[in-house]
């Protein structure tokens, strides 16, 4: 299909200005790098305007300090030393990593069997299954968070259900406005980001390898740990990153469900740009968060690669 359309356009434009097109086409044909950059250029443009420039602004601002309502633009590492010295920032970072780490592990652990089932045991209408699994995620993120508020609430679905059955006498208060609530909600809200990469990597596994393992005497468990798990590792790693990185800085879930003890670094960054009105500090916190996430991601990559090598 692509081939025919290409030749068609060439055929159509060729009589209009043959030498010129020929030259450009020639350059493009010979220079593979240029072709690559050209293909990437729309994305690169958006990345530059939408990500690189704001990032640079953030970086520069993080070295400024607040002065009344304005900024003192002399460059100083004052904010960074504050982040290092004052315990509140470290504690909030730690809490964020803990909450989103647990949420990531729970999500991947819960989604793996689902993806596994569709990849290996569903033979007809796979697409339909995937769509059905991701259907809840077609609703807005905010709505899902609010739905969990209703489920976990004081007179929510869980509490009133348990009370009517007679398991508990008074509503469970730890369900809402706690770290537990944030973890549960994050684990559900980001499930789609785990199911899809896991499914793709599991689906790609060559079934004859599994048959070979069985032929060579592996039981189902050994077969899973020696073949399926290592080969689906890319999916697990992708899912982990896709969930861990955005949830660490999540703002709306802890804001609505976290209560005083469930606040995360994202909420504090928001406050710096809002009520506390210290934009440079907010910028610094964002940069520090990014650095920490990168560091953790690198360590995770390194560890999984080592583990994979050992298995292989």
């Amino acid at each position, binding site marked *: 299909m692509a081939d025919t359309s290409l030749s068609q356009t060439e055929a159509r434009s060729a009589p209009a200005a043959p030498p010129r097109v020929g030259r450009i086409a020639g350059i493009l044909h010979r220079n593979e790098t240029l072709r690559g950059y050209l293909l990437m250029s729309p994305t690169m443009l958006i990345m530059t305007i939408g990500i690189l420039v704001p990032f640079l602004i953030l970086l520069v601002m993080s070295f400024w300090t*607040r002065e*009344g*309502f304005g900024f003192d633009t002399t460059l100083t590492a004052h904010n960074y030393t504050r982040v290092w010295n004052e*315990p*509140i920032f470290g*504690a*909030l970072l730690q809490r964020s990593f803990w909450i989103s780490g647990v949420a990531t592990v729970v999500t991947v652990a819960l989604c793996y069997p689902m993806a596994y089932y569709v990849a290996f045991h569903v033979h007809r*209408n796979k*697409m*339909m299954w995937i*769509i059905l699994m991701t259907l809840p995620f077609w609703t807005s993120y905010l709505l899902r968070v609010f739905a969990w508020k209703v489920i976990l*609430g*004081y*007179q929510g679905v869980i509490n009133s259900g348990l009370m009517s059955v007679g398991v508990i006498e008074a*509503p469970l*208060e730890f369900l809402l*406005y706690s770290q537990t609530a944030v973890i549960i909600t994050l684990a559900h809200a980001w499930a789609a980001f785990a199911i899809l990469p896991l499914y793709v990597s599991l689906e790609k596994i060559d079934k004859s390898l599994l048959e070979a393992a069985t032929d060579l005497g592996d039981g189902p468990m050994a077969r899973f740990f020696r073949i399926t798990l290592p080969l689906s590792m890319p999916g697990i790693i992708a899912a982990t990153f896709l969930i861990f990185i955005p949830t660490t800085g999540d703002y709306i879930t802890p804001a609505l469900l976290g*209560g*005083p*003890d469930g*606040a995360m670094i994202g909420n*504090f960054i928001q*406050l710096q*740009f*809002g*009520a*506390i*009105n*210290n934009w440079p500090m907010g910028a610094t916190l964002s940069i520090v968060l990014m650095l920490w996430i990168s560091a953790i991601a690198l360590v995770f990559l390194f560890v999984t690669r080592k583990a994979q090598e050992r298995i292989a």
Partner: protein
Amino acid sequence: MDVVDQLGAVREGKLSRRKFTKGLLAAGVAMATMPATSRRAMASVDDEATFFTWGGYDIPELFQPYEAKHGTPPNFAIFGGSEEALTKMRGGFVVDVAHPCNSGMPRWVQSGLFQPIETSRLSNWADVMPELVALPGNDAEGGNVWMAPFDWGQTSVTYRTDLYELEGEESWDMLWDKRYAGRLGSLASGGDAWWCGAIKAGVAMEDIATEEAFTKIAAVMREQRPLIRVYTDDTTTLEQALSSGEMAAAMTWNSSAVLLQSEGVPVKFARPKEGALTWVCGVMVHKDAPNLDRAYDVIDSLLSVESGQFMINDYGYGHSNRKSFDAFNEETLAGLGLSKNPQEILEAGHMQRPQTQEWETRMNETFEQIKAGF
């Protein structure tokens, strides 16, 4: 493609994957384009004035005259605290009319983001209570004002009369009551909570900026923090929690108690022996207000008797139009903690005072750290 037909096909198991995907695609396209088409249908949205206000004021009931004139209420943008609102506007957010309170007003004026209100353009101005206009820092050039007063009221404790066992008199101690740990709520904005902390700590309002006051208030706020189930700017959250019994007492404004009472929830808006926190809020016009004429219509609408009667009757707030009170007898007003003479109420409590920007920022920073557990 017929929707009913498709549903039938699904039921009979005859729907092919391609057809199903096609149906989904059609639904997706329809959903994605819906906002675009409906927005185009309401092309007038951009022509309406935008009112930047606290949650709960974004209701058509307060804009009956505006709606009568323009056919639709103004646009709304919501903030949780006035400091947040000011920061947002400093960041470049342009609205027509914003809703600060007396303690923030001088700082809002200093920010240079607002224009004086020409009182001659307001048809209801003659009925506005002069004592509410004469706030410190409110007079602009030529007899105009910066802020047109709109509502006044109190911040106090709303408690469940059936769940909260009162010991002695009503007092701010109720929100520091260890018996109800985890069943108390508070407003999240330092603009309310910190001042209430000052009353609890016994700091006089005129001394609130001293170093000693800071230490004292921070100490009581830290003491309170483990007892609080949730700090929120969303009054609905507090109201729901009080109505379900999740909370036994919470710091609220007048409206929460009145709303809950009207729904038959046994609550009371306490009159703490130390005095409640009192405030006057009003509206200011942004200097770059894109719809200035309609901005004046918003203000006029807020100052109207219709809005005033709604404010008093449904929210239990005081209003700035003296005629609004005519429909109510003294008894009803006293029951709501209001009076035709606002000075009486405002002075009986602790009235918020304007503070410097440095104080405001430091207070917010300290309070946010305390809320985060430090």
